[in-house]
């Protein structure tokens, strides 16, 4: 296919699908590395800094995912008062979350390797 035929909305849709599948893994990884509980804004900013803006969907999309991970028992949370504003909800990873993180990281690496292998030799 000629590159001028490339459709911007199609590319954006593809990026959105990619990030939808991986954002929960990224959130688990951020919380798995952090030694202490983090609140939503901190998590979003860490992801922005470390992820180099690759997972740069709108950060509001992270909050519902955090809540769903908590509902699935992979994260645990508590509300604590803050001196700089309203009380914050702090998230920390659970033992189940660590297991899920290991499994999903392995699944991700397998996917990445096989996609890389298929892409090998295609034009840039």
């Amino acid at each position: 296919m000629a590159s001028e035929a490339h459709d911007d909305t199609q590319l954006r849709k593809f990026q959105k699908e990619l990030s939808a599948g991986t954002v929960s893994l990224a959130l688990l990884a951020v919380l798995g590395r952090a030694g202490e509980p983090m609140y939503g804004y901190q998590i979003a900013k860490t992801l922005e800094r470390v992820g180099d803006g690759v997972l740069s969907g709108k950060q509001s999309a992270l909050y519902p995912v955090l809540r769903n991970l908590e509902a699935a028992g992979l994260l645990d949370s508590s509300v604590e008062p803050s001196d700089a504003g309203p009380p914050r909800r702090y998230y920390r990873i659970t033992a189940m979350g660590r297991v899920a993180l290991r499994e999903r990281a392995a699944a991700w690496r397998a996917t990445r390797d096989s996609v890389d292998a298929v892409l090998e030799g295609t034009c840039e």
Partner: protein
Amino acid sequence: MNSQRLPSTIPEYLEHLRRSLAGADPALIHDALYDAEEYLRSELAENPGRSEAEVIAAVASSYGAPEEVADIYRDTETTVQTALRTPPPRERRSVLARFFGVFADPRAYASLFYMLLSLATGVFYFCWVITGFSIGLGLSITIIGIPLLILFFGSVRVLSLVEGRIVEVMLGERMPRRPLYTVRGRSLWQRIGDMFTDPRTWSTLLYFVLMLPLGIVYFTLAVSLLATSVSCIITPLMVWTGMATTNLQINGWHMLHVDNGIASTSLSGWSLPLVLVGGILLLFATMHIARGIGRLHGLLAKHLLVKTAQYA
């Protein structure tokens, strides 16, 4: 990009977001507003040198403009929420299959359990509200009454959140997962005043008072329907397996009487098959009643604990 005026303060942004989410589930609006406020306040606290308007303008690209945020929450709700919820049972075709299909519906069991639990929670809520309110009000002529009353109103908000979680888990009605923020920038006294003028505070109190009679009715219905149908089912089975004798009256008519390990019934043998069929039908009807009551109660809880706050 947008002809609408961009918000320049946090309350304006939240108001804009609320408008963009108009028509969505009130509980979803509640969560979306809570998350946005946390992000905005944190961003503002991180950038002490910048004005509120500058911070909000910057946030539009990182967190998203109100319309985008609204779209994201709507999307996630439809995809993830439906994935997390227990799958709805397949539509069964015939009336008969639909009637008996209720046994495969987890929602019916959860509702039945809620009906039994509601007696305990209902008594607790009622006592808490009546005791707290009357002690607070009674003592308000002295100095300790007012702080007691304020503490009491705070505790009612926490209880309302707890009941919301119970209702969502058991009855499947989406309820808020985050407490409601008080409006920032108001003094402590103004915030205390808000607590008394907020219509949700009063509707929550009403709900908790109603929970006692409702809990009693739910519990009584559940227990008597279950007991009747189960005894109608096991009596014929016990007679046919030789564990109980028929046509026996001990101090009046009874369905099943167990004394010193000897079981008996006042029914005569020919009526046993009819009783068995009736018991089975009643058991299924009980499940239907439980599911229906669960659905109605979910709506009531949503109306009194959530809805009024969203449209006030």
